[in-house]
């Protein structure tokens, strides 16, 4: 078996642009936002919805960095986009309004959408004006995505939809959902006959129902399609090739720093609380987390490098997500052991941040592919099964 990462690596890696000015600009913007009260470290996550924040970030040039200029982008490197993303995540900024749209929906439309669709939507995503949701999971179709039952039937001028999607983050704020649905009857090949449609949610025949999380927050939703017709121009790809498109889309979802920085705010609170005068045991526990974070970040940066060079990265992207979400879940558990406090909710202090992280932790290793699915992918890449 070849190692996932060639080693020793004589290539020297891709030279990276100097990003100190960019980092400084993002930090200055985030400091303004903190002063204005839109960022509450430790008490919100990157899924927190704030349209105003996204529009202001776009105006400062922090969205769509890598996109073509004709779509409102700046044609900068993937590394520069990575830097902006990690700075925002480290600050605990509310990214929910634009995150999915900018990370995966926009790129998916640019690659596979019709010209009409690109012209209508892509600029507005770059401007932070549109929110997208992911329409993959269904009540009976979780990890086994190919079993989706939501269907779209060809009608004159479009596709008539029936079905249900679940766990759709921020669907109650979203303008569009990219929905994986069956457009042809199921055959021997379970992956054939699926398509991706860009579905407008302002249709009276689409209903969004809240699924309140165990922390009492409303971010997840069920979306019901009951005869809404989606125009032909909203089909991605050729039709019937939806499985391939979904796999491509998921690659964008599994490699980014949001998969290991969800509880960074708590880690910072933890290091501050322990302080330089902390005892050796506390320092060792914190050091274990910081070392892990540093190494996972190296892995994540390497994925970006490999993707940009057109090299395979499925194995390491999957590993990065699995290890990253493990770290996100470990941080509150270490904080529990190191800090002498009882987690209580209601304020933006250490006890509040600890509560928030504990109550969010289960979802880290479920969303975007469960831990067990990921390990199965890694095993397959190793040549097992």
């Amino acid at each position, binding site marked *: 078996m070849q190692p*996932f990462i060639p080693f020793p690596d004589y290539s020297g890696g891709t030279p990276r642009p100097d990003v100190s000015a960019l980092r400084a600009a993002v930090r200055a913007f985030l400091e303004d936002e903190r002063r204005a009260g839109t960022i509450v470290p430790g008490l919100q996550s990157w899924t927190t919805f704030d349209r105003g924040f996204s529009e202001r970030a776009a105006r400062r040039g922090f969205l769509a960095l890598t996109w073509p200029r004709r779509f409102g982008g700046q044609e900068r490197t993937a590394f520069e986009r990575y830097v902006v993303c990690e700075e925002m995540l480290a600050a605990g900024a509310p990214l929910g309004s634009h995150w999915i749209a900018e990370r995966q929906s926009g790129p998916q439309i640019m690659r596979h959408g019709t010209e009409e669709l690109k012209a209508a939507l892509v600029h507005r995503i770059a401007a932070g004006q549109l929110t997208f949701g992911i329409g993959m999971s269904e009540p009976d179709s979780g990890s086994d995505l190919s079993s989706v039952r939501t269907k779209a039937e060809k009608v004159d001028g479009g596709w008539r939809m029936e079905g249900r999607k679940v766990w759709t983050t921020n669907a109650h704020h979203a303008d569009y959902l990219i929905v994986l649905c069956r457009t042809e009857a199921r055959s021997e090949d379970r992956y054939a006959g699926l398509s991706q449609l860009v579905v407008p949610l302002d249709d009276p025949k689409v209903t969004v129902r809240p699924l309140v999380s165990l922390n009492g927050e409303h971010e997840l939703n069920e979306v019901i399609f009951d005869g809404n017709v989606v125009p032909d121009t909203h089909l991605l790809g050729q039709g019937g090739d939806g499985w391939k498109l979904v796999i491509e889309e998921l690659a964008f979802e599994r490699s980014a720093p949001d998969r290991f920085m969800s509880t960074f705010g708590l880690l910072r609170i933890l290091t501050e609380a322990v302080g330089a005068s902390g005892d050796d045991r506390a320092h060792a526990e914190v050091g274990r987390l*910081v070392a892990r974070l*540093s190494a996972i970040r*190296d*892995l994540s940066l390497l994925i970006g490098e490999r993707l940009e060079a057109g090299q395979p990265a499925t194995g*390491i992207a999957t590993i990065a997500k699995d290890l990253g979400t493990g770290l996100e879940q470990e941080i509150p558990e270490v904080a529990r052991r190191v800090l002498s406090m009882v987690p209580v909710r209601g304020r933006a202090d250490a006890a509040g941040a600890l509560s928030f992280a504990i109550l969010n932790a289960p979802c880290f290793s479920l969303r975007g592919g469960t831990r067990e699915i990921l390990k199965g992918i890694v095993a397959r890449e190793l040549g097992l*099964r």
Partner: protein
Amino acid sequence: MSDTARMLDDTAERLLARHFAGNVRGTRESAAAVLSEFFDNGLDQLLVPEAAGGMGGGTLDAAAVAYRWGYHAAPGPIVEMLLLPALAAEAALDPDRTTLALLDEACVRSGTWQKPAKATSVVAPVIGEAAATVLVCAADERGRLALARFGGDGMELRSSLAGEDVALLDLAALRPESVQATEASFEAFAARGALLTACAILGAAQRQIEIAIEHANTRKQFGKPLGKFQAIQHRLAEAASEQAVAQAAVRSAIAAQDAGRLKPLQWQAAKVQTGRAATTVVAAAHQILGAIAFTEEHVLHHYSKRLWTWRDAWGREAELERRIGAQACAQGAGLWPWMVD
């Protein structure tokens, strides 16, 4: 420089593949033969500066050799073998009869030895037959590398987990014969030793993962290969994941050291992750290989014992984690910039 690294990598691979095609390690004769080839091929000159007649290689160049050494579970303390010649040249010592040990404390002041405050002993792997001299590599008050020279008297000869000779120095009882100052940075020296050890670990862990996968795909129980069982798949996925994240950390730390911009966090995290990977990979490989690999009948133990040795050499996880944590906790609200700037 990358061409040099590739050439050295090939040299080491040819040399070791010839010696260790099967389960034939562990004899004193084979160890001596490999050691003499190491010198005959000039690998000892790798890190010796060009001004001193060496090859003037960087960490990446030496990394390739250390990785191959681990991959073949080859005998001899490869990290000390790579690092010693440059120091021996500096200290005008006979490299054949000398070895070295790291002492991570500032215990040289104004050129004089101070009894270390924390460490009570150091372990120096013996290169070749016997060590007449141990160079204890410590820091002085300015953070420079100082070489404290200990003679053979009072050393206790023990063996490492891998069964190789080590000299144990009782620092409470012994005093160095002499102390030599150098202009080299102690931090950079300790980092290089840690990164080369990390590479040896990655090589051995890589080979163990390969052996375990091969076994899982061929050994059948209950009518199907072990690799068809999800429990086995996940165990191997976990081992390969630890290996990958450790590789990523080591790779970026080596590049940073050769570019002169290495931060303590980077090499310390890299050593910590390889130590963690070693633990996970060895445990997984033994669990999957079963009883046969608990015996000397199977080759696996050569790798396991080296991995267990190397994870505690040149920076143990517990100590490095404590240092990383102490630094991180001293940053106030500036944890993030400290990590990435």
